[in-house]
């Protein structure tokens, strides 16, 4: 597992300072001689640094395998793709599961509450380490998109292109509500023990699984669910008049919950959802989102999905409007799909092809201009 130790002190939004902490990352493809082909990808709530190929921990496809790889949207034959884990996460970066050298125990809920701003400030150090002066692009969906917005706001003109996908500049009440539901499920699991469950290795799996089940519903669309599952029964010909999983959708959600607990830490889930809830770039700039991108030279491409009700088109369009208000270079399309918020992770050809063509032509156009 690749990681860097960030030695310098970072002041977090909560006021605490951190230093000498690990940040895990993965890279795909090669940095060219001119060092102008690097793309930094940010992952979503439950993602990690393993965007492409086989995830060595879970042995399953990387979370953005449809989009990242040779000949794909983010073509690793052409681009050097970097994907960093977030602080607060559980895949090798500084998080609640990290062992505190003073106590020799996991930090647990003594871990500071972090924000999207803290995450990108930590990830920025990776560019210094990899000696990348300027990124070709930053990209990400959902919470990854929020990091894109925060990154271009914090580090103006560090990236030539920005692709925030299916995200928002200000986490909505509905989204905070769903995150709170997930957190309450975890915290009401008796195994959670105020977050100090690591010692006996008995984790709040039930709570975390319920959190995942609830969240999973929000990632899909009603139509998508209906078409995939309808009222189909699970390996039975009739209702059993009990509370087992009679319906396929129940069985599917239970399965999603059960596999999730094997790869994700409950405390990380609490911290990362909190960071999403605290995200309000508009408020950070006194109610005027345009100010977050003042004087930007970055080329923006914003994408939303018709059936995404979690980060709906209207919220993505608010970002477009803020950028147009200051004359920024912005493209926007709403992709038609019934796959809900999850569309950005799935095989949606319109979405994948448009990104691929956009990146390839933009990269060659930028190079032409230089000559």
């Amino acid at each position: 597992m690749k990681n860097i130790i960030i030695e310098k002190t970072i002041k977090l939004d909560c006021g605490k300072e951190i230093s000498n902490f690990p940040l895990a990352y993965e890279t795909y493809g090669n940095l060219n001689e001119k060092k102008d082909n690097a793309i930094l990808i940010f992952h979503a709530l439950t993602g990690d640094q393993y965007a492409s190929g086989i995830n060595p921990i879970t042995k399953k496809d990387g979370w953005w395998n449809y989009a990242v790889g040779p000949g794909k949207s983010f073509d690793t034959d052409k681009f050097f793709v970097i994907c960093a884990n977030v602080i607060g996460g559980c895949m090798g970066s500084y998080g609640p599961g990290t062992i505190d050298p003073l106590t020799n125990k996991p930090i647990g809920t003594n871990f500071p509450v972090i924000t999207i701003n803290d995450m990108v400030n930590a990830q920025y150090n990776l560019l210094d380490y990899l000696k990348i002066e300027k990124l070709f692009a930053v990209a990400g969906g959902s919470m990854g998109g929020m990091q894109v917005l925060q990154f271009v706001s914090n580090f103006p003109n560090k990236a030539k292109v920005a692709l925030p996908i299916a995200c928002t500049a200000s986490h909505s009440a509905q989204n905070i509500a769903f995150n709170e539901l997930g957190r309450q499920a975890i915290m009401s699991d008796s195994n959670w023990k105020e977050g100090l469950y690591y010692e006996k290795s008995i984790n709040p799996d039930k709570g975390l699984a319920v959190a995942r089940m609830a969240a999973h519903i929000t990632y899909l669309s009603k139509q998508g669910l209906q078409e995939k599952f309808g009222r189909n029964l699970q390996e039975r010909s009739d209702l059993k008049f009990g509370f087992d999983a009679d319906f396929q959708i129940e069985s599917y959600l239970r399965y999603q919950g059960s596999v999730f607990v094997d790869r994700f830490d409950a405390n990380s889930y609490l911290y990362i959802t909190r960071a999403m809830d605290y995200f309000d770039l508009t408020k950070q700039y006194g109610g005027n989102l345009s100010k977050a991108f003042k004087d930007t030279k970055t080329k923006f491409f914003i994408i939303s999905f018709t059936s995404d009700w979690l980060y709906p088109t209207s919220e993505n369009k608010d970002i477009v409007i803020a950028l147009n208000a200051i004359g920024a270079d912005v493209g926007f399309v709403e992709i038609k799909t019934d796959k809900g918020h999850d569309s950005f992770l799935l095989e949606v050809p319109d979405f994948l092809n448009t990104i691929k063509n956009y990146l390839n032509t933009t990269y060659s156009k930028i190079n032409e201009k230089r000559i």
Partner: protein
Amino acid sequence: MKKEFKVISKFIEEKSRVLDVGCGDGILMEYLLKNKVVDVRGLEISKEKVKKCLSKGLAVIEGDAENDLKQFPDLSFDFVILSQTLQAFMSPENVIENLLRVGKKVIVTIPNFGHWKVRLDLLLKGEMPVTKNLPYQWYNTPNLHMCTIQDFYNFCNNKRVNIYKSISLNGEKISNITTSNLKYKNLISELGIFLLEK
């Protein structure tokens, strides 16, 4: 490239900032970028066409002029182009007002409903005209507010909109429209191209 686009691009000064409203596949945008304009943006209602534009790396946003022009600040473009779509809006009046608010200069092209073939269709056949520029039947046409070159002149007069230049397009033939030849040009032009200013 279409003759119409050639006329439009002649109106546009070098290094200006341009918004192409209803930019379609982005053909005019690409031409402008290659030739003289540094900065060109597009607004397009069709998802398919927006995807094509974005695939070419063009700065195009999906949206429609009646709702989405609002987001552009006053006089934020040197030129705003509206090519052959004015007649399709619910309220062409509002759209023109918004175009003139956003752009220092506005280029509008209209398919001319005053063309003699159109007049003859209605006069002789007693049917709604179907022509090369207006290929739809009455029941499936997106064109809600057809007008003639004369109508557009009157509209601009009433609204105190300054018509800087007006060009008649008839097949491949390009000519100037003046107040003295207006009646005639209204009869023979397939397309009217206008450069407007508030």
